[in-house]
């Protein structure tokens, strides 16, 4: 556990990077984790080179969900949309640098789920 709340995670939680919204954005998506009420929205602006130029996330939730969203937004700036599509669970766990059980994994992966839904152009039903 001490590992789970290691300094870098608490830092991203307390001082989130790229927190906010982008209006207009090239794509946006929002979803929640009904289990715990975590909610994350991600807005992305894409450059002419088809790479992520700007990204912002908003929402609320536990330290793991918010820190992973913050880390993910830092990680994808400058990456092509194809590269973003390739991101996996393991990439998120590598960013966080911790191991998670099945319950907390959902918290950690919420931002990736939201980002991918946005990249793939899935319609936001809300």
């Amino acid at each position, binding site marked *: 556990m001490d590992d789970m709340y290691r300094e870098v995670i608490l830092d991203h939680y307390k001082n989130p990077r790229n927190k906010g919204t982008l209006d207009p954005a090239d794509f946006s998506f929002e979803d929640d984790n009904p289990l715990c*009420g975590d909610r994350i929205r991600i807005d992305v602006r894409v450059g002419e080179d088809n790479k992520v130029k700007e990204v912002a996330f908003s929402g609320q939730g536990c*330290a793991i969900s918010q820190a992973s969203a913050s880390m993910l937004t830092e990680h994808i700036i400058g990456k092509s949309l194809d590269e973003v599509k390739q991101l996996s669970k393991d990439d998120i766990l590598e960013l966080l640098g911790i191991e998670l059980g099945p319950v907390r994994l959902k918290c950690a992966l919420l931002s990736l789920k939201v980002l991918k839904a946005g990249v793939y152009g899935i319609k936001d039903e809300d």
Partner: protein
Amino acid sequence: MPKLNVEQIRKDFPILSREVKPNVPLVYLDSTATAQKPLSVIEAMNSYYRLSNANIHRGVHTLAEEATALYENARDRIAKFINAKSSKEIIYTRNATEAINLVAYSWGRANIKQGDVIVLTEMEHHSNLVPWQMLAAEKNAKIEIIPVTDDGELDLTVYESILKLSPKIICVTQMSNVLGTINPIQQMAAKAHAVGAMMMVDGAQSVPHFAVDVQTLGADFLAFSAHKMCGPTGIGILWSRQQVLEAMPPFLGGGDMIKRVYLREFKANDLPHKFEAGTPAIAEAIGFGAAVDYLTAVGMDFIHDYEREIIAYAIERLEEVPGIKIYGPKAERKGGIAAFSFGGVHPHDVAQILDSDGVAVRAGHHCAMPLHDRFKLPATTRASFYLYNTKSEVDKLIEGLYKVKKMFG
């Protein structure tokens, strides 16, 4: 006055002596989700499988006779536990949820018509909301809600005005699984009956924690689950009066619930079997019987008194911690449940940090989303107590919360 000997009781529960990880003993504060099981319950189920396993009813061989006797004797003891007039009034279900669904399907579909009023409360568990929402949608019936006050009690003034709409049924929990509020069922039932309404009581949190007597409760239906009262998962009870149950159409169809089957029709069995289709959870029913024996031997009044003492202490200590806000009535008006928020720290993080010290609490909406909406909370952290919890376990909880504060403060 004799008191409950908690150290002695703890020895009856094998799991309580385990460590969560080396040198970190388990502090189990999640009995509202499910209670731990004493050895006598585990042994009763074990012994059934080792010695008497057979399908019940209709068998003539020795094992079938034994299994049937064990299964039916358990029902008799459960009937006695809630002071039912007869074992025919004790319907085995999968859990309290299924018991409520049984009422909504069987009684509900036979008695609720378009425009009828079904009354629910803002503090119900989803199990006492969703079956009625499904029924109301199907029948085009109306739902009226008894709101919860800021103190976490039902707003009985609103209840009075809802009663003027001549509702058909009032569905209410006897004890909130989040706030711990103990609702005045007797008083509410008297008023419901005066306008001809039925009273569906969710006893999932009350029956495990204090003596419930269906002769004085005022309920027309009472649902509860074994696993929250030291018994196994997979078995629960619906109680109602024989006359009411006899008038209800069967719920699930299949073996055991019939008296006679023809190719195009059937004749339903007598109570209680009429509502028990298919091979039931036999070992679980036997385990439930052992759980009821255990609780009876300890004494429900002792359990209730002891829990009041523990919750009073827990609330006193929780209130010391800056940033903690406890939801629900004052300690003397509630059962052994403390749901709280902790400043801006998400309940998942609270629960995770507590877990590192072996303290098991629950974080989330506890299957009561509308209640959390009412208090504008996405989730809460909930510590709940039972007959085996100690004051030193409360102290462990508080130590853990200070650790959370240090980490997130």
